[in-house]
């Protein structure tokens, strides 16, 4: 896991998100390759006889979360990530063809599994009906081409532009986003693998996607999962960073725009021809749940189990339903596919995440 992460995601994403964005000084130093020959020559010329350990070194404390400040971005994110995903497991139920993401607090004396997310895919017949919507969305390709292509890579620039997120001022925030992105990628790939849903191009040669169809399953949409996770995480962080007593904290004040952006990113994938609207609907739920989970792990708060039953995502007469932000995910007016349990679940303590969270909050004050 760790190897895969460092190599694959911390390398790729810390390189891509925090590494690339917070690149300024640390990136500059790390990247400036000083020749070893030069260092050998320099030392040999000036070193003189060795006089033993002459410096006063303060050894960092044992298992101190604040030691995270000592580490480079990639290793810091990797350390936090292992803590974040500790206790996550996947289960499937063959009868109803459901898949669950569960959490067990492995640090507790008695270990209990608790469900976080329960998903059930739409039927093949539903996907076929949804194909009409995918075909209709192709009308928007020329309009959205620039966005679709820009969003082939993680759409960080779109969120940065909205909330004023910068590499020089918000390095720890970028690392939190890096963490939630990694969490999404890992979780969604297991779900995609489990459900193994076909892409739109499998149902018709006339979809002709405007970008290459990715090499993994269609449902749920990874782009939707990640974009909604970004939106929910940023909202929570901006709220936590707002001074107490403010009537509408900044996260809440940004809620509508963050949600619209996430939805736009999700829909753009349908426009491109690589996703069904119902993929976005499930991704919205999953991304929201995963961001909630990260925030709860970082702050010691609780989460509510969420579910999405794809078989209920259709119109009153069985017609294909488009994805819309107006569909509510909870409450009495909710779209029936979405569920959110009334009771809440604790998700243990994660001191490393908690440290990173607090540092990120400071960046917005």
């Amino acid at each position, binding site marked *: 896991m760790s190897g895969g992460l460092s190599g694959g995601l911390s390398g790729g994403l810390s390189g891509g998100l925090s590494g690339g964005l917070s690149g300024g000084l640390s990136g500059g130093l790390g990247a400036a390759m000083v020749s070893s020959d030069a260092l050998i020559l320099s030392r040999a010329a000036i070193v003189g006889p060795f006089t033993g350990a002459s410096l006063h070194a303060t050894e960092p404390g044992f298992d101190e979360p604040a030691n995270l400040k000592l580490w480079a971005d990639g290793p810091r994110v990797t350390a936090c990530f292992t803590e974040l995903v500790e206790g996550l497991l996947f289960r499937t139920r063959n009868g109803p063809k459901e898949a669950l993401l569960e959490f067990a607090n492995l640090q507790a004396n008695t270990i209990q599994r608790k469900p976080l997310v329960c998903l059930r895919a739409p039927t093949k017949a539903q996907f076929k*009906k949804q194909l*009409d*919507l995918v*075909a*209709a*969305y192709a*009308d*928007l390709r020329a309009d959205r081409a620039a966005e679709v292509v820009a969003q082939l890579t993680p759409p960080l620039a779109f969120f940065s532009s909205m909330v004023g997120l910068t590499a020089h001022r918000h390095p720890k925030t970028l690392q939190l986003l890096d963490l939630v992105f990694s969490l999404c990628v890992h979780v969604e790939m297991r779900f995609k693998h489990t459900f193994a849903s076909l892409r739109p191009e499998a149902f018709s040669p006339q979809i002709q996607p405007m970008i290459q169809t990715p090499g993994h399953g269609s449902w749920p949409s990874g782009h939707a999962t990640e974009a909604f996770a970004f939106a929910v995480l940023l909202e929570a962080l901006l709220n936590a960073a707002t001074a107490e007593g403010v009537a509408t904290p900044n996260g809440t004040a940004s809620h509508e725009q963050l949600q*619209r952006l996430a939805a736009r990113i999700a829909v753009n994938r349908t426009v491109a021809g690589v996703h069904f609207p119902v993929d976005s609907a499930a991704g919205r739920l999953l991304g929201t749940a995963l961001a909630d989970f990260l925030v709860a792990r970082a702050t010691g708060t609780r989460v509510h189990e969420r579910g999405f039953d794809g078989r209920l995502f259709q*119109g*009153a*007469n*069985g*017609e*294909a339903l*488009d994805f819309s*932000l*107006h569909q509510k995910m909870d409450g009495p007016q909710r779209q029936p596919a979405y569920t959110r349990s009334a009771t809440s679940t604790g998700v243990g303590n994660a001191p490393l995440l908690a440290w990173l969270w607090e540092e990120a909050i400071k960046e917005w004050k």
Partner: protein
Amino acid sequence: MSAPVWQPLPTGEFTGIDWGAPGAIDGQDPYLAWAEADHFAGYRRRPGKKPPKWLPIVIQLSEPADVPALVAASRTAWLQIPRVYLNVPDLRFCSARVKPRFFNKLRSDAHLRSLIQRFELGLPVAPHTHALTDPCTPTSQPTPAHGLLGGKVLGLIDGGLALANSAFLNRHGHTRIRHFWRQDAYENGNWPGNQPRHREPLDPARAGPTPHDMGYGHELSGAAIDAAMSAYTRQGQVDEDALYQHLQLWDLSKPVNHGTHVLSLACGPGNPLHPIHDDASRADLVAVQLDWSNVLDTSGGAMNVSVLDGLMYILARCAPSAQVVVNISWGTLAGPHDGSSILEAAMDQLIALYGGRLQVTVPAGNAYQSRTHANATLTPNRAVTLNWRVQPDDRTQSFLELWLPDGAQDVTISVTPPGHPQPLPAMPMGQAGLWTDAHGAPLCGLIFPTTTALGTRGTCALLALAPTFSRHAADTTAPFGPWKVTLTNTGASATLFDAYIERDDVAIGQNTGARQSYFEDADYDTSGNLGSFVDHPDNPTPIRRSGTFNSLSTGRNTVSVGGTRREASPSGHFALYSPRKPDPDAGRPERPGVKKVPDKLQPSDDNPALWGVLGVGSRSGSVIRLAGTSSSSPQLARQRLNEA
């Protein structure tokens, strides 16, 4: 799974008309019935807000009634007509603003009813839902305007008119626009990004007073424009930015404006390489600037009031001796196309009454390749299905008009929403219905009367759809994708139909969220190969380019102008978007009187690669290129003015 069903139309909260009653829709404007069904949602009325106070309408009077007769039979408390309509004796058309009482009176007062042949809804958005100032009363007399113009006069009705552009100045540096009327009312009006709650009324000290004979908008005389220009002249140069800011002409801060380009083609002095010294380049001008509500509402059906009022304004500023040519580079796609819409009939009568002293030029339209028209013959028992593709993310309503000739009473219409296996019940002529969401809000309406106010021959069925997207959760949105519309002839004799999709695109510089719907089928040639840009008689598709025509320019007396390439190519000399002359598919059966061939042609593209022609931009000296038959008609207007 239950099949979708039609619900009856409700009783109108404004008109009090029980639209669901037998015969209630016959002879009426179906857009009014639909507006009442969705509570004027298409005209930006938010849920829970009050209905409009007044409705703008355009009226055709029954012979031999005239405007004074209608004024005498009504009261200004519920029917207001601009005084300008008293100027032309025997005119059988006028615009008006009406209150609910008008509709009560129509029901109870047989004399009033006998005066009115038909009426159509205008554009009921503020400020056109306010009372007029100084409307006609029974004692009103025609009152001539000041500064009547003689000789050759060019009139223009358009948007974005840069009245201080050097192209429109005479050799003394004074404006040739002797009269300028803008129909809008707010400094920061109804354009995208500005929600109406931030509106400020225009300042009459800057935008000019309301012309007494029109009762709304603001007017600038040539002298007022000259005075403002001189006040904003620095070191011999007019500071156009500051001038337009002072005059509250906010749209002229944009570098490209449709009306300015069009006006320069009609009467500009050419450019330094090709100067033009003709009568048109010296003629006096009268300009009417449409309200941006019209420009935004490219559904266009509601331009009738604005354009007719504009034409009356221009005529009221000209002396009886004047030779007037008016260009209207604007248009819509749906309508009877036989010249019998109220606006077209009104323009025809005005031209006839002026006996050769008035000519009106109108573009033939730009939608030749846009798949917005279908036509087919319906032999007994034959059914023709149209696939009407409505786009996602369309924030405006979509409309389809199905026109039938007289004697088509056995045609039924059935509609299948996208994603629904079963159609709504087939509807016979004389009926109407709404398909609603779970809360009763209409997603779609089909209004299929025996006769219609939209034209005088046959009838028109209107299929209206809610937008397919909205930012407001409370708004109703219709499903997008292919709507199947099937016309079936259940009778014993053959008939035919024309289907026209209403214009629903975005005008230059705007962002209304409109998206043009279109027809599709497997036989229609979209290949772009040679020969694929015209209809071939043997192609079985009902989607026909021929017959796609600006629905403002099918009158008998107006001149429709198609677009050509200045330099022809081996594939032909027509601009691809323009109707052609002669008609490549002339033998196809058509409803009586339908016009589908332009009267005249003028270049609107330079060559196959360089679409559009050059004209002036907003600022003096700037040159821009715009494509479309909007460029053809002003060139014909220029020719006619020079010959006059």
